[in-house]
């Protein structure tokens, strides 16, 4: 091991001791030799230093040393490719601190961890082949990354969970929501939950994300509308002629359907579910997109035979490969794995009867693959799949058109065109055999995020809070969340034409949905009174109604306008058992049951309006439930 020798302080002249100086000053080669002989290994050298020196040195090593070196090494870094190369070097070095520094550098530079982890894995693989030493796996890197966030969280919240929830906690969770590494968010939330529960604290992580400021930030960060705004013409993919209408471009970041079954509308189901349930859980946009991709793949499956090509595109780390791997598992029974590698251009290829998976696809790599397959086909040495659907994963959306065009010249595409029919029995059987497995995996992912909240009652709190804030945030959904969950299960059921894999969960979600609706409707005396008032309005003329209840009923718009006091008085007239003490209590009750009212077809609006010179709350109440 390399060692460090330090010339003695007493050899210094004018504050400095160096080799030529001490020799010139008369110290003998023997003395110098003894200094060299006493050289220490790095750790021992650090320990031999005086305390202040040691502290300063360790601090510098831990905090900035490697990072500085990395920065120095990457002065020319301008893109992720170079970052990946750098990661490769770190992977080879196997140095944990270098890895940590790389993570920090990635955060500073705004790099995604995807390619870095990939490069680390590749570096580790090479390193394992060369020498059997310790190495850092990408999973370990993720763990380090997660821990960093988790530590930051606990530094902010440790011991002061409740107090910090409304200050640092929210800021942190907002920050995490935009994190490129979804597992960091998960890990942080899980650790937080565990710690808080261990302390006997009732945890309401949802409160972090249902506050207006955070909610807005989350929505800005996730931009759910971006999911369906792929520019027309941005991707030009020519289908292979079997069914032009049923070609999908399914990037992980943004997607667009060219046609789909109108009666299912999976997009609405998926986005509603993810926006409302998972969005409310502050899962990062990446996580949500991944789930969306998985869910859409479920709907995509029955149509696979009709597709000319499936392309998953989007930023690094969004889960394109995972989705493709999931499809591969479904179709092949095993996850797809890379089986070919060419020069510095990695081609991950997994071919089976059904799927030709090309990871990190670029025009050059696909072209190269085409040549390889052609050679194999002509030489008779290899056995290219006769009937396969090209599945591309491409990070660069701009290159996707060129990549896709080249994918159509793959020899398998021609075979595919002739061999695969929509009613291909083999295909249907293959899907049917593994559909349950895949659907189950998707639902388990969703359940993993939803069920814990339900189990400790916090989903109820979400609903209550959303109800309370519904007037201020009309876009927020509450029952829609559960309804969407039910919808997606039901839609899957319809598409599959068979029992869903997790019928228990489907039934449970349905039950939850109905229970909440009944709970909201049945427990509100106000709603009962309003229904009675509505019946009275239907039963008599507007003039009679006004005379009887002192409320003007506009039959044309089917609405009444009233102050809270006027409405309370009328409601007490139709329901003498109504236990409401004041008009403000009435407003609060109405606000808390807005969703239930909306479910019944009623619309309640609160606004401020001057009547008789006084500022009062005016309630616009269009009757429509039973009218």
């Amino acid at each position: 091991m390399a060692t460090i020798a330090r010339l003695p302080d007493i050899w210094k002249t004018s504050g400095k001791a160096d080799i030529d100086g001490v020799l010139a000053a008369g110290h003998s080669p023997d003395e110098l030799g003894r200094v060299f002989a006493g050289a220490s290994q790095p750790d021992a050298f650090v320990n031999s230093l005086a305390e202040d020196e040691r502290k300063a040195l360790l601090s510098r090593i831990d905090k900035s040393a490697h990072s500085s070196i990395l920065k120095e090494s990457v002065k020319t870094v301008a893109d992720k490719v170079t970052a990946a190369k750098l990661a490769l070097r770190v992977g080879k070095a196997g140095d944990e601190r270098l890895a940590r520094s790389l993570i920090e550098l990635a955060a500073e530079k705004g790099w995604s961890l995807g390619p870095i982890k990939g490069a680390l894995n590749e570096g580790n693989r090479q390193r394992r082949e060369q020498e059997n030493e310790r190495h850092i796996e990408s999973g370990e890197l993720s763990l380090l990354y997660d821990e960093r966030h988790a530590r930051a969280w606990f530094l902010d919240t440790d011991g002061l969970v409740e107090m910090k929830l409304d200050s640092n906690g929210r800021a942190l969770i907002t920050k995490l929501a935009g994190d490129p590494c979804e597992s960091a968010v998960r890990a942080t939330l899980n650790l937080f939950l565990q710690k808080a529960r261990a302390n006997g604290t009732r945890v309401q992580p949802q409160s972090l994300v249902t506050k207006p400021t955070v909610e807005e930030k989350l929505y800005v960060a996730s931009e759910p509308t971006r999911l369906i705004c792929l520019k027309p013409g941005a991707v030009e993919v020519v289908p292979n002629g079997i069914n032009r209408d049923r070609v999908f471009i399914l990037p992980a970041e943004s997607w667009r359907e060219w046609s789909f079954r109108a009666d299912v509308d999976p997009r609405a189901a998926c986005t509603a579910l993810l926006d409302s349930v998972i969005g409310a859980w502050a899962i990062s946009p990446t996580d949500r997109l991944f789930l969306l991709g998985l869910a859409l793949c479920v709907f995509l499956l029955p149509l696979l035979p009709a597709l000319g090509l499936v392309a998953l595109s989007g930023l690094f780390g969004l889960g394109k490969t995972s989705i493709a791997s999931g499809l591969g598992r479904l179709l092949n029974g095993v996850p797809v794995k890379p089986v070919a590698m060419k020069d510095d251009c990695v081609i991950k290829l997994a071919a089976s009867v059904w799927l030709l998976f090309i990871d990190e696809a670029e025009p050059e790599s696909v072209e190269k693959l085409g040549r390889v397959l052609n050679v194999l086909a002509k030489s008779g040495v290899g056995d290219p799949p006769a009937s396969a659907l090209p599945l591309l994963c491409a990070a660069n959306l701009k290159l996707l058109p060129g990549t896709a065009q080249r994918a159509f010249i793959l020899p398998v595409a021609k075979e595919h065109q002739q061999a695969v029919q929509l009613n291909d029995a083999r295909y249907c059987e293959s899907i049917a055999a593994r559909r349950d497995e895949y659907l189950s995996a998707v639902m388990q992912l969703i359940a993993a995020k939803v069920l814990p909240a339900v189990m400790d009652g916090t989903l109820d709190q979400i609903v209550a809070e959303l109800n309370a804030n519904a007037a201020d945030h009309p876009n927020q959904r509450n029952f829609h969340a559960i309804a969407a969950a039910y919808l997606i299960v039901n839609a899957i059921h319809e598409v599959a034409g068979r029992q869903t894999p997790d019928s228990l969960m489907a039934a449970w979600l349905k039950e939850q949905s109905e229970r909440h609706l009944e709970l909201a409707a049945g427990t509100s005396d106000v709603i009962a009174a309003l229904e009675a008032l509505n019946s009275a309005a239907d039963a008599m003329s507007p003039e009679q109604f006004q005379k009887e209840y002192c409320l003007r009923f506009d039959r044309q718009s089917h609405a009444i306008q009233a102050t809270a006091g006027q409405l309370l008085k009328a409601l007490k007239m139709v329901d003498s058992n109504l236990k409401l003490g004041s008009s403000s209590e009435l407003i609060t009750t109405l606000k808390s049951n807005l969703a239930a009212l909306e479910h019944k077809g009623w619309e309640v609006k609160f606004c401020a309006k001057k009547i008789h010179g006084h500022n009062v709350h005016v309630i616009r109440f269009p009757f429509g439930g039973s009218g």
Partner: protein
Amino acid sequence: MNLDTVKSKTSSATDRSLELRSRVLDDFLNALPADATFYASLAAKRAIPQAWAEKMRLKPLTAASARDAIAHINEQHGRNSLSEAGLLNADGNIPGALLADNTLIPYLDHDGHVQKIRPHKMGLPGDPIAVYSPFILAETKASEIVLTEGEFKAIAACAAGFPCLAVPGISSFVGAHYPELRDLLKRHGIRSVTICFDNTDAPKADPAYPSGRDDTNFYAVLLAKMLSEDGF
């Protein structure tokens, strides 16, 4: 013409260019005079005996001697060759670094050919840093070396019996240039490295580093760890 032929011709052209540069620098060094006073000064101040100073071809540098030497070899090699060797700027003038009173340190390769020249603590424009000096490794045939900062220290250590290489600054070969150092050591079969940088009382300007030595300690530890990881 196939690719191999092109590569071969390109490679030959590069070799010829380096060879010519080495010859120009060699002639420049030969044209610089050195007297007993210079060697005596090196021995007294730097603990470098005349034998080692001559072996490493150290030469005194003054504006006059530099001008004379360049004028002398200009007749032999021409301005273009002098420019390529870094003895003339793009504008045809002698670089300022060669016109100050200094000691000129040639960097000798494994075979003793001049790779580059460097006035002490200065550098010629566009000239990359290098480890000083592969020639020492060839000369001493050592498998264990000392690594220090600065060429004079390396020569002095060698003269005292300790094979020693030098980097031009404590941090110079920790970053992007590290692979050059590692590869050089590997090529020469070095098994063990002892780092011995200066022990200096730096100004205590930064309260975070009261000792003032953090830079030296830090880069020494870092370089030692990096070298250790690479098997030295």
